[in-house]
Each structure stands twice: as C-alpha cells, then as structure tokens.
C-alpha cells in the first residue's frame, strides 16, 4: 500500500482524467525485454508440451490459464453404453425413437446450414447415416432428461445435442475426423486454429533460439505469432499474421490486448485441449458418467476415486513438491476448504517449496521457478479447481518472481520471495480481515437480528467481535444441504455464548421478516458488483432484498476480480453429485439408490452461484465500506498489475 500511495502523492495533486481516455501506451507495462515475458513464456523442459500447446493470448501469469488444467475424458459413451445396455429401457422406446429421429432431423437441418459450403459432402452424408444409426440405439448419448421427454426439437436443445453428438461421432469413428472437424462448434474450431498457430510459433521460436540462445527474450512460445516473428523470418507466417491482424483490427497492440483481455478459461467441452491436458495430468480423474448438458464446459468428475490413488503415489519421485502434494490431497479430501484457508495453505506450501528450491544448472531462477510454480498450480487445479482468490495470489507471486532484481543471489531471492508471501498472507488476508471486522461491527446495533448463510470466516469474526464488544444481538444461521457448514459455525458461536437460531434455507422467507441485517461471505466479488459465493447466497440475498433487509457482503479486496459474470453457469464448480442424491444415515429416504446410474438422470451439485449487485447493499472490504458499484474502482486502483503490496 505504501509504495503505491507514495507514487500517487509525490507531488501536488494532479489533474485527474475522468471518463474514457487513452492511457499512455507504455505506462502499464514494461517494454519487450521485460523479464516477465521472457521468463514466463520461454518454453522450458518441464512444461514444454504444455506451453507449446497453450493458446497464444494466455500468458502464463494467469494461474487458471486453461493450459494448466488437465483433465481426463474417458471415451465417453462406450462404458456407459455397455453398462447401460442390460438395464431395460424399452417402455417408451417407440416414442423415444420418434422424438429422436425428430431431433436428428433438426440436427441435420441445422448442420446443413453450416456445412452446405463444405466440399466434403459425401463424408457428411456418410456421417449422417451414422448419426441416425447411433440414435436408433435406445439409450445413446444424445438423450437428456429434459429434452427427450417433453420437447419437440427446439433450436437450442438441438445445438446442445449437436455438440454432444459430435463428441460421440469422433470417438466412434476416428477415421471420420476430417469431415467431423468441419462440424465442430465455433469454439472448437477456434481452439484448433489457435493450437496450430501456437505450435507454428513455437517451432519457429525453437528455430530462432538455436542461433541466438542469448536473446531468450524473443523465443516466446506463448507470445502471439506477430511477436514471435519479429526477429525471425516472415515467410510461412504471413497467413497467421494476417489473420491476427484482421482479428486485432484497430485495437491496441498485442501486449495491451493481452493484458486487457480476460484470459479464457478452460472449456471442458473442448476436446482437443482436454486431450492435451489429460496427457499431462498427475491426478487421474475419471469423468462423471452422466454429465449435465448445460455444464459440459466445466470439469465433471467421479468423486472419491482419486484420493487412494494419489496417496499411494505420495512417495514416488514426482515433480510436485511433497508439501504441495499434501495440500493438494487436503483439497481433494475436503480437509481444507474455505477461500482464505485454501489460499493460505497454498501460499504456505509454495513458501516451503521455494525454501527447498535450488536452481538447476544453466537455468535462471526466475524462469525455472515460474515453471515450477506453474506445475504446482496445475497440480492443485487438478485436485480442485482454483478459486479466484487463489488465482489472484498466484498472479501476485508470479509477478514477484518476475520482478526479482537480477542482481540478487539465489538465497537472497528465495528469502525475498518467502517474505513477500508472508507479507501477502499477513496484509491481504489476516490484517484485511481485522479491518473488515472493524468496519462491519459499526453496522451492528443493539437489538439487531443478524442473518448469515453457511459459514464465512469473516462473518464469524465479525459476530464474535461484536459479541466481545458487548453488543446485544441475535444471530440466525441459515444452512443448506449437502455440506451443512452452518452447523460448524453454529457450534462455535453457541460455544462463545451468542444466542443463535438455526434454520435451513427452505425457511429463509419465513425467518427473514425478523432479520435486520444480512451478513454474507464471498468467494469473490466481480467487476460488475456480482458476488460469487457459496451456492444459496443469491437466494438468501434475493429474499433479503425483497424484505428490504440490508445485505452486507464481507470480502477481502484480494478476492476482487476484474472479470464480469452475469450468471452462475459460465464459470462454476461442480461438486460430487452423489452428495445430493444420498442422505447419509437416512436409509429410509434414499429413494434414488437404484437410479443414479440411469442415463436420463443428471445430478447437478453446483458449488457457487452469482448474486447480482442489485441485491447487495454494501460490500465491506479492507478499503472500507463501498457500494457494489465501486468495485471496479478498487480493482482499478489497487488490484491493477497485481501489485497488492
């Protein structure tokens, strides 16, 4: 905080520009020989394949960059088909076949529009025949619960099915890959294009590195082709340059855009990337059988299978540092949960790993360590998708590594980084919480009834502190299945002598009329004021808004993110579907026991949801109490460039 303020206040107050203005182009980042870009984008032995295959515009500074999150997608339908076939499913089969053929019909129509210009019409015809054949198998992957039963083939459904269908096709018929490629969705085509481009650039970079190994700066596999081609020949790259020019248009130059554009997340329905990621994966995840259609872009795994496997691998020689490995296992098992706890655990593991790190021969610390951290991050991401706060912390750390002065010796650099991490944990998490508590307590008056949902560490601290101050208030803890985290909070609060009421989320509209304040925690707060938090938060906030009860969201500023999200679909995390189908200890209500494997049942256990900013009265952060409309200001002023401290 201090260096930043100093830079702003060094002289007399200046004229500040408001509204839209073009920033000086060289202000927000350093020039080409920047150690960041060189160190992070140079292909290095550890992550060679990863880097070359990753899409160009993503810098490795981004922790949740898609190249880092490998998954395993098993051949999707074979196993499920075989497991399913014995299950008798025919009762509705005539009807089903009817609707299916209808879907197929519209599917074909749909494709005709896309494909009509394709030269490989014969292939297409062939594949169409196959489609029909496949769909005549009673329980093919094309069926979904909602679609097949009720609908005439609506347009959107058919699109969804198309994607599913094409996955199917390719697995069934590898020989048909060429025409099928034509029919891949736009995102897939684009991904493929980008992958090819990256590969090309990488190849060239390798070539140019041989003569000039000293100028490692230019050998960036991750950079866009335009950048990579600068020193080397232009000959075979004109096409890609042209295309990127066309795409770029009149937008600011490459680096600007790279900085401005939010990096795309890994889309798990993008099979080419998923395949690549799978090859590198340490954690062997098994794909869930009945994936929810709408959430195909998110990783959906079988839960509870990886832990024994990983535990047995603990003593194998592995690129992952044992401390990081341990933290990863704790993520999987759920021993560490909650945004702050996960982030602190990760940072401390990195601290430990940095302590044990020594630079191999013929490598520089900044590059090699960044690569190491990348591999750790990808491992942790396999264990459980990273939260946004962890992403910010990783960005901070990588930024720190990249900005290390070259004159430092290795031990000095390591000590430097460790103290940086320590400082981040202290200032941005622990101290920030204290400040939040200090602010939020002023909003608690005697006689208040405070409602909280789930278990948020910040809210817990606020309640305890208010109790210590002797304020007279009552707490309503609203909780929900399957995690029932509120019970833990309840236990701790009751232990401290607070008077509490415990209710399930079903009762929230009943209990809300007596509530005077709602305190909520958040996993992240996004640039449009959307609060990304434990699923159910949006519901509580909405009910509170309807009852005109002020909703206070407590969130440390390091969890703020410049992304904008409008719904909880495009980015989310899926939990164990069994958790919602089974109630442990209640044999009498396990109605779903036999059906969880059936094809037309898809269990959706979302972990997060997005609360629109309309329902939030105030966001309490370490920078004070701000309205949700001011989140972009904080992101712009304090979270820019991940300076943080």
């Amino acid at each position, binding site marked *: 905080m201090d260096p930043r303020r*100093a830079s702003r*206040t*060094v*002289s*007399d*107050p*200046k*004229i*500040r520009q*408001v509204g839209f203005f073009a920033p000086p182009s060289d202000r927000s980042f350093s020039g080409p020989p920047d150690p960041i870009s060189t160190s992070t984008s140079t292909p290095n032995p550890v992550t060679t394949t990863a880097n070359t295959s990753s899409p160009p515009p993503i810098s490795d500074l981004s922790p949740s960059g898609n190249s880092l999150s490998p998954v395993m997608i098993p051949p999707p339908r074979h196993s499920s088909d075989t497991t399913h076939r014995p299950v008798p499913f025919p009762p509705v089969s005539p009807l089903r076949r009817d609707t299916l053929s209808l879907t197929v019909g519209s599917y074909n129509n749909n494709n005709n529009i896309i494909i009509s210009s394709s030269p490989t019409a014969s292939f297409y015809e062939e594949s169409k025949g196959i489609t029909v054949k496949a769909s005549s198998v009673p329980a093919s992957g094309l069926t979904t619960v909602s679609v097949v039963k009720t609908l005439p083939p609506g347009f959107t459904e058919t699109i969804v099915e198309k994607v599913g269908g094409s996955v199917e096709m390719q697995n069934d018929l590898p020989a048909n890959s060429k025409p099928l490629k034509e029919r891949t969705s736009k995102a897939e085509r684009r991904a493929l294009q980008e992958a090819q481009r990256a590969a090309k650039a990488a190849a060239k970079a390798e070539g140019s590195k041989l003569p000039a190994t000293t100028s490692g700066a230019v050998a960036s596999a991750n950079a866009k082709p335009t950048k990579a081609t600068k020193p080397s020949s232009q000959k075979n790259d004109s096409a890609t340059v042209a295309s990127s020019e066309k795409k770029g248009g009149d937008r600011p130059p490459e680096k600007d855009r790279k900085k401005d554009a939010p990096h795309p997340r890994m889309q798990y329905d993008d099979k080419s990337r998923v395949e690549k990621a799978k090859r590198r994966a340490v954690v062997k995840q098994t794909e869930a059988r009945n994936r929810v259609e709408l959430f195909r872009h998110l990783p959906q795994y079988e839960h509870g299978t990886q832990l024994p496997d990983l535990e047995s691998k603990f003593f194998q020689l592995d690129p992952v540092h044992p401390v990081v490995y341990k933290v990863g296992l704790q993520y999987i098992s759920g021993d560490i949960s909650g945004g702050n706890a996960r982030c602190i655990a990760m940072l401390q593991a990195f601290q430990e790993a940095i302590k044990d790190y020594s630079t191999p021969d013929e490598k520089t610390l900044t590059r090699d360590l960044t690569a190491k951290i990348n591999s750790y991050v990808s491992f942790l991401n396999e264990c459980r998708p990273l939260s946004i706060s962890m992403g910010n912390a990783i960005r901070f750390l990588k930024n720190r590594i990249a900005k290390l002065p070259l004159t430092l010796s290795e031990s000095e650099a390591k000590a430097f980084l460790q103290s940086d991490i320590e400082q981040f944990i202290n200032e941005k998490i622990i101290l920030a919480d204290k400040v939040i508590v200090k602010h939020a307590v002023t*909003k608690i*008056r005697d006689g208040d009834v405070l409602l909280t949902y789930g278990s948020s560490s910040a809210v817990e601290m606020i309640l305890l502190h208010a109790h210590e101050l002797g304020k007279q208030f009552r707490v309503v803890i609203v909780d929900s299945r399957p995690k029932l985290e509120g019970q833990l909070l309840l236990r701790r609060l009751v232990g401290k002598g607070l008077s509490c009421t415990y209710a399930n989320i079903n009762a929230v509209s009943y209990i809300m009329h007596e509530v005077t*304040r709602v305190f909520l925690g958040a996993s992240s707060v996004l640039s449009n004021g959307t609060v990304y938090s434990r699923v159910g938060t949006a519901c509580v906030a909405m009910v509170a808004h309807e009852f005109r009860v*002020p909703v*206070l969201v407590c969130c440390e500023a390091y969890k703020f993110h410049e992304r904008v999200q409008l719904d909880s679909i495009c980015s989310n995390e899926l939990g164990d579907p069994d958790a919602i189908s089974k109630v442990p200890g209640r044999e009498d209500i396990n109605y779903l026991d036999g059906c969880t494997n059936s094809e037309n049942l898809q269990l959706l256990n979302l972990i997060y949801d997005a609360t629109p900013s309309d329902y939030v*009265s*105030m966001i309490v952060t370490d*920078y*004070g*109490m*701000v*309205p949700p*409309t*001011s989140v972009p*200001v*904080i992101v712009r*002023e*304090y979270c820019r460039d991940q300076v943080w401290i």
Partner: protein
Amino acid sequence: MWWRSASFILDHRLQEDPPNNIASSSKEPDTLSTLSPPQTHSSFMAAADPFNPIPNPKISAYYQTRAAHTAVVTSDWLAQAQAAVGHHPDDSPAPQTQLLASPSASGKSFCVINEFNNWRKQPDLAEAVAAIRALAAVIRASEATTMMELEIELKKASDSLKSWDTTSISLTAGCDLFMRYVTRTSALEYEDFNSARSRLIERAEKFGEISCKARRIIAMLSQDFIFDGCTILVHGFSRVVLEVLKTAAQNKKLFRVFCTEGRPDRTGLRLSNELAKLDVPVKLLIDSAVAYTMDEVDMVFVGADGVVESGGIINMMGTYQIALVAHSMNKPVYVAAESYKFARLYPLDQKDMAPALRPMDFGVPIPSKVEVERSARDYTPPQYLTLLFTDLGVLTPSVVSDELIQLYL
C-alpha cells in the same frame, strides 16, 4: 477531487462577458472573498458564547445555525427552548479542554472555534466553508517549526471543530477533506519547512476559494436541466438550490416553483419569499401535499446536508418521502450539493446515523405521555436520486463513492 473542480466553467463565463455578469454575481459574494472574518454579531449568536459552544447538547447545533440563518421566525422560540432545557453542568468541561488544547501549544490567544464562529455568522457562508477558513487561519497563525508539529496542530484544531458539532455532516466532511487535501503529499517531507508551510497556506486558500465558488458552479451546471415551462418542486431552504433558481431566473428561463412548507422551522416560507422577490411564480404547499401535486411537477430539486458514500443523501426530514413519491411517478430527483459535503458515511437505513435532534413546535402543548419524533433529517437511498449537481460536475449517485475512494484511500 478538488483539483478537478469544474470551476473553469465559472472562470470561463466570467471571462466571456464581464460587464453584465460580474455585476450580477459580485453583488453578494464580495463578502465571501474577504479574508478577515466580519465582526457582526447577531443577537442569537451572542447567546451561544464560544466557551460553551453547545448550550444544549440535545439540540443539533447545525440546525441552530441553519435556523439562525434561514428561518423566518426562529430566535425567540429557540431562546425559549434553551431556557426551558437549561444548562447541563457536566457538558461544559469537554469543549473547554479542547479549546485549551489548541491555543495553549502556541501560547497565543488564537482559537479555532472563535475563528470558526466568526466566519459562521455570515449567512451566505456554509458551515463547512467557515471551518475551512478557520483551519486555514490555524496554519497561518501557527508557530510550529516542523511539519509534524504543524500537522498535529491542524489535526487538533480540526478535531475540536468536529467535536463542536458532531451532528453536522458537512462540518465533519469539510474538515476531513481539508486535512486530506492540504496535507496529503509526501513531497512536503522533502522541502524545507517554510516553503512547505507556504505551500500549505496556498492550498488552504485555494481550497477555500473553490469551496466558495462551488455554489456558483453548481448553478451554472444545472442550467441545462431547467427548461422553459417546467415546474420544479423544492423542499426546505437550500442556498444552493436558491442559487440555481436565481441563476435560472436571471437567464430568463420561464418556470414555476412549488415550495413545500418545510415544517417545523418553515424554511420553505423563506425560500418562497426569496423567489417571489425574483418574480418567479411560486406556489406554497404543506409538506403533506407532495403526492397530491406530484403529477404537475417536472423535476424535484433538493439540497443536501451530506452526501454519503453509497451516493444517497442526508437531508432535511421529508426529502426521502418526496424522493419516493417522485420515483414512483417517474419524476427526476436532482440534488444540488457542494463536494465538501461528501462524507465517509454509509447509512444502511434511516436509523443508522447519529440523529440530529431539533425542537418541534406543534403550536399546542403536547402531553408528556406523547412521544415526539424530533429527528431533523432523513436518508434518501441512491436508487431514488437521478443526478447530483456538484462542483465536480454532474454525477450519478454511484460516482460519489468512486470520488471518495480516490480521495481517502
């Protein structure tokens, strides 16, 4: 945010047509630019002697000042109220110690509160501007030899000013903003003391000047929103709103004004009086007739005691309900407020702020068993406001918080 003040509009206008406009604008603000406080003592002010600045802690001093400046019939019943309540013997020591603290350091007879009170007597000078002037005088009178000393002295002075009246939002905000604006530069630490001190004085003066001009700037900015033939509803007496309407009348705009009565101190009567002098058609309403007349109204203009971080305003009681009625009938609600009223407060609801109490006069004796709501102001949430006219420009409510964040963090 101060250095971004839209005062250029005013300067520009003055340069453009000096002959007629300066004549009109220099009629009243001449007294504003004088640096020595005028020595006029109104009879009411004499009653509140500076060494016991808060004669009755239950009544907001801010509203006393306002009453002295703006109300039609005030002094007599205020005096009665004071006499009725009497003095609390135990509230005098606190202000006295503060008063002793600030001047005794320099051993001089200079006192912020005195200075402030002198400035405050000018009916045209807002309380916050008086405080800013007083604080500037502190710097000038200071005999400190180091920056730290000066800063501490300034801090003490501003604290004593703030504690003089904790209910006044603009006073607190003005003091805070002054401190931020004047002392926030690390460059001060590298200069030698004298140049740093003169820089501070220079800034303090600039700040005072901007604050003084603010009202004119707002009046200029708001002219685009007043169109011919419109009907404007105003609530209470706000000097900024009066300035806006006065400027509009001078610009030969045709409009009429509905004034609410503004119980209990009937500030609306005073405003209607002023407007009638300007030959603006005025209609006076009782406060409860707002919804009845709202369909005739084109826009609502209100002032503000304070603009809070959410973008909402704290203003005289009744503003909230007017805003609600206007919102439900889709009429725009415009707020005219100088930027020294931007306060770091974030009320969540009406009861979430320190209440400013004032005496209520119902005309008849109230039985002792009947409770009287005596709060003087309410909070209007930002969703019911359309635009804020400030000397920083015309802002939407959400920008207020952005400005505050930039300034304070």
